[in-house]
């Protein structure tokens, strides 16, 4: 009985350098590993909860994964996102242009701030899910309503971030511009906006996150299209694994989009943050 143990021990002893190399590599990627482990643990808990089951309408992780793969391969996700992204992209584009413009104007002028800021502060605090049905009374049930829902959620965040960024532009930089005899236009385009751009961009990122909430609310509350249709349809015919897969897909898409934007932000706009 002792022989195999010895053999085992010796086989482990030989590639010591290899093993330590492996451990070194492992510790280099420690954060990534912990993150993976956390996700893995979550899936494990999900699988167990689905097998108990905590509810008869709660699918296991593996069932959901199977549904997810099937729906990816048969093209239902592609078709759904082609529809869902329309109001989202249009809404975010409009919010970005209007939001940044308004934010800069409000940051520069006290009068504009008094006039406009309260509206957006109230809008940001308002429970939007309760307001979305009101849109349908005025604008019906088409693309316009859904785009408006996205704008209602995304615009306040973008405006308020832009306004705070411009208002809090570094005063010594502004003073420097004065001493170099820069005119108003130069002060705005060469000093204030570049200085404010990281915070404005962060506002855009938060606006996009809010836009995802807006488009899903609209698709669930106004008319079921795109990913909202997948969720409501599979719920109505009791395909719970498919319904959860659709929910997971939207979480995945929004997380990946936001992570990509954050990476872009760190690389281009905030090199100082990356170093730390």
């Amino acid at each position, binding site marked *: 009985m002792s022989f195999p143990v010895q053999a085992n021990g010796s086989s482990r002893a030989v590639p010591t350098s290899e093993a330590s190399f492996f451990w070194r590599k492992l510790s280099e990627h420690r954060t990534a590993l912990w993150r993976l482990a956390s996700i893995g643990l979550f899936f494990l808990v999900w699988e167990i909860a689905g097998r108990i089951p905590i*509810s*008869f*309408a709660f699918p296991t992780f593996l069932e959901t994964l199977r549904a997810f793969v099937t729906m990816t391969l048969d093209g239902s996700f592609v078709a759904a996102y082609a529809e869902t992204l329309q109001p989202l992209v249009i809404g975010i584009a409009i919010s970005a242009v209007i939001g940044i413009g308004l934010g800069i104007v409000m940051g520069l002028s006290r009068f504009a701030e008094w006039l406009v800021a309260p509206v957006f502060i109230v809008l940001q605090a308002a429970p939007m899910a309760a307001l979305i049905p009101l849109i349908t009374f005025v604008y*019906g*049930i088409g693309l316009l309503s859904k785009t408006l829902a996205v704008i209602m959620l995304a615009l306040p965040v973008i405006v308020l971030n832009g306004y705070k960024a411009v208002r809090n532009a570094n005063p010594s930089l502004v003073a420097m511009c004065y001493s170099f005899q820069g005119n108003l236009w130069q002060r705005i385009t060469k000093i204030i906006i570049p200085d404010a751009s990281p915070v404005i961009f962060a506002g855009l990122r938060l606006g996009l996150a809010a836009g995802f909430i807006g488009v899903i609310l609209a698709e669930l509350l106004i*008319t*079921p*299209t795109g990913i909202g*249709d997948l969720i*409501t*349809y599979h*719920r*109505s*015919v*009791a*395909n*719970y694994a498919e319904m959860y897969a659709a929910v997971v897909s939207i979480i995945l898409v929004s997380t990946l989009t936001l992570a990509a934007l954050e990476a872009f932000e760190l690389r281009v706009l905030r090199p100082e943050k990356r170093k730390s």
Partner: protein
Amino acid sequence: MLKELTKKLCGLSGLAVAAGIGLALVAVPQAEAKVRVAYGDIASVENLHLLAAFELAKQRGVDIEMTYLKSEDIAAQAVVSGQADIGVGGPYALMQKVKVPVRIFLQLSTLRFYPAVNAEFYKTWKDLNGQEIAVHSRGSGTEAIMKLMEEKQGIKFSKISYIPGSEVRTGALLQGNVKATIVDSAGRRLLQEKAPGKFIILPLDGINATDEALFARQDFLDKNPGDVDVIVESVITTWREVTKNPAIVAEWRTKYKLLPDLPADQVAEITPYFTELAKGKAFPLNGGGEAAAKDDFAFYTLSGQLQGEPASLKVEDFWALEPLNRALGKVGTN
């Protein structure tokens, strides 16, 4: 100072949780005595007769508590998870796919929908060939009706769009946003009132599927046969009375003080609404049963709610017939 405060807060919240659990435990035995009915819509004129039937059951000693939920799905979920005893709806897909034995035990109504088209553009079913129509939602009864008619008439719609809510589709039709859709009887009357002659109701025959039914978990039906029998008998006798005399619903409303906040224009709607349904024989006088189940299999396999061949589906997997048979034995078939 802060630590002390958090400690106190923790203690308080712990106390609150304990009190909550305690309350829940105390509340359970009381809740069991009540029959909890989950309805997937708000109370309106359309379910006054059901409310009246429940009042009748209450008089016979069954304590019924109605809960109004946002949609039929949620009502079905409440029944599956045991938070409600009886649900109102037609959860065939759920019964087929969820491993909990949920069974329909009484049919309340059959689908009453009217395909309505703008007379300016279309006159008959054939005119709809290659045209766009609007229905309630994917996998809904309204979609199944339109697909069935497509098959029967040998036509093909160019696109089916989804507009939830019959009143929304009626409005869209009146405003001209939609040229062909399918509406309920309230929508049909509204169309005739607002624009007489402007819209044509296309004929619809041979569709007899369940719209709403009462369903419950098998274990509830087994444990509470007395309460279930009273409810089934109350509904059947109420349905027969309404068919005989539709005006009685308005009287019941005042007698039992049902929907006391109903606005006057809707109160005026009660009798015409039930008269029309009674004329159209919309109230199943014998509670559905096996024949209704067979009709539903044919219809809902087509709509995609049910999977498989209609002939291969078993009635006992979807219906609990005993309460209905017991009740019909008592009140007789009509």
